[in-house]
């Protein structure tokens, strides 16, 4: 015989934990909401930081010139973050993105400026180098079954060394580019309206994210990328050729780095083999703050764009408030940790 414990309770106590449950369900509700809309956390953080810095830093912050300057300053890291997030979606990581970018920019620069080869050959050649670097990463990871962290840690050093060897660590001056191959600096051109200065590089960053969003959400390839990142074995069982997908992801990321290389020449104004030394870590920062899970398969491609902007807004806001560079670095550090903590909390739902 089963005892009915409920029966002994007075009528009005049938639902004794109702208040608590209501409370829990509210937090649950938020958790579910963010789980369904992974981009909402960074969007809220971005909105909040714009409001806060608007107050603290004053009118200068909201000036169209400053807002467009923030976009311009994050554009290159933003483009790298687009490639990086693609890889992180497959539960990988790419430490070599910035090295690929700098190497390809040197290739483009040397071919166009030093050897005087026409630009319509030099730039595609740079793209080919970028794609090849990505292919090398992908093949090493899938063929030798090495962790992406290790492979790209190695290739980061390799590409960086090649870059220094090939460039002789010597910058190609902007004035020489203007003379022989001004198209290399095309992404530095700008559209001016209401005091804002929108460079082609900024527009390129948004286009890159737009195209990636389409590919990830509207094509079979995109579904495969998410599937591989979520659970590689099930994806394999479902008939997805996971290794092929992975290699293609690294190749696309390599191409994006090469596109970023072209844009970086416009942004920096010269071909500089020593710039963007920490570009790889900065791109990972943007991806993480943008709410893409480092464990793969979860997160929207638009998140890292927002993530890059958050970093830009923080730096600009703190600077205009007269805060030392040191504390800008400090603030970004906390942002990363908070972003990952929130991601972990949201992920509890799926486990």
């Amino acid at each position, binding site marked *: 015989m089963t005892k009915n414990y409920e029966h002994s309770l007075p009528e009005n106590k049938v639902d004794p934990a109702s208040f608590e449950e209501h409370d829990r369900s509210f937090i649950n509700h938020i958790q579910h909401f963010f789980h369904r809309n992974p981009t909402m956390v960074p969007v809220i953080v971005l909105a909040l930081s714009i409001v806060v810095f608007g107050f603290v830093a004053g009118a200068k912050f909201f000036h169209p010139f*400053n807002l467009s300057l923030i976009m311009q300053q994050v554009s290159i890291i933003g483009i790298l973050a687009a490639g990086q997030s693609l890889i992180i979606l497959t539960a990988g990581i790419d430490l070599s993105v910035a090295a690929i970018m700098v190497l390809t920019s040197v290739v483009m620069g040397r071919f166009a400026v030093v050897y005087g080869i026409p630009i319509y050959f030099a730039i595609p050649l740079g793209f080919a180098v970028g794609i090849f670097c990505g292919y090398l990463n992908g093949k090493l990871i899938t063929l030798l079954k090495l962790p992406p962290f290790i492979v790209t840690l190695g290739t980061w050093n390799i590409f960086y060394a090649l870059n220094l060897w090939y460039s002789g660590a010597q910058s190609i*001056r902007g004035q020489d580019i203007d003379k022989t191959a001004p198209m290399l600096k095309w992404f530095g051109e700008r559209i001016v309206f209401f005091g804002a200065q929108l460079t082609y590089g900024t527009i390129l960053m948004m286009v890159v994210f737009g195209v990636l969003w389409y590919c990830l959400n509207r094509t079979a390839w995109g579904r495969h990328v998410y599937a591989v990142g979520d659970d590689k074995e099930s994806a394999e069982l479902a008939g997805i050729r996971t290794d092929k997908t992975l290699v293609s992801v690294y190749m696309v990321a390599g191409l994006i780095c090469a596109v970023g290389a072209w844009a970086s020449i416009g942004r920096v104004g010269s071909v500089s083999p020593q710039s963007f030394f920490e570009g790889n870590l900065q791109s990972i920062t943007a991806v993480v703050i943008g709410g893409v899970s480092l464990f793969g398969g979860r997160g929207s491609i638009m998140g890292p764009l927002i993530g890059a902007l958050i970093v830009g807004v923080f730096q600009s806001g703190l600077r205009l408030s007269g805060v030392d560079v040191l504390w800008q670095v400090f603030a970004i550090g906390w942002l990363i940790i908070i972003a990952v903590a929130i991601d972990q909390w949201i992920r509890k739902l799926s486990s």
Partner: protein
Amino acid sequence: MKLNSLKYGLMGAVAMGAMSVSPTLADNVSACLITKTDTNPFFVKMKEGALSGAEKNGIDLQTFAGKIDGDVETQVAAIETCIASGAKGILITPSDSVALAPAVKQARDNGLLVIALDTPFEPADTADATFATDNFKAGVLIGEWAKAKMGAEAANAKIALLDLNVSEVSVDYLRDQGFLTGFGVDVKNPKDIGDEDDPRIVGNDITQGNEEGGRKAMENLLQKDPEINLVYTINEPSAAGAYEALKAVGREKNVLIVSVDGGCPGVQNVKEGVIGATSMQFPLLMASKGIEAIKTWADTGKKPENTPGLDFYDTGVQLITDAPVKGVESIDSKAGLGKCWG
């Protein structure tokens, strides 16, 4: 015993033979060059000078470099390797003026002559000698030039200071404070960047010494005050970046940029009017003087002496500008291109 030493001698000879094909190796003095990185053209030039000097003096030179500026571990390992290899002396550009002291002491205790190139140790007598540019003087020269060039307008200058990085290493504050001193600004603590309260200073920002950082820093300071008309830069790549930022807002014609280094692209930029004036240093000379000093030390046991009044040997600095001013000695960019490095 005898057999053993013969064995080791043979092994040594084989090992040495594998490293080089020089037939007179057994009598040769060996030395090491340890640079901060082998990426910066400045150090590339320094290495070139050391190698050619070594060849001339019959010295076997091993070269080492850190991966990035500030890479102390790699430099410590390089010093240890040098001691173990039986080198007579070390030429080093320390990545950290303080942290490398124990390793340097160990080398000196083992009878090696240690010479700091380009960057002095703190204190300077950590090493046996220092062959370097007088970075403070390099700053003073461009400061005095800028003051004379601006004339009466110098009193209303709006100055941007583009420094190296957050750690404020000696070369960074020496050039920055030298520039301000030359321009006639009270620098307060001469070892501290940014403690000045002269209203003509718009602000300081960091560049990491490259174009990208130079551009960003210039953009940032222009946000503080778009009327900036005088820009000091830690080196010529950052000056090139600053120029791009000024061009983007159409102010490149109204702003005076000064810099330090004397790299060939930088001197070319002086010629084309991007940089108003730059102080050239001589890495090749530092290295070749250093090699000679090790040779002398190996032959006679004599150590090099400092320039009178300084705690290092001054390898000289030369102002390069196409707009010479009264009272500051300079040469033009054409002559400069004949002397530049990298």
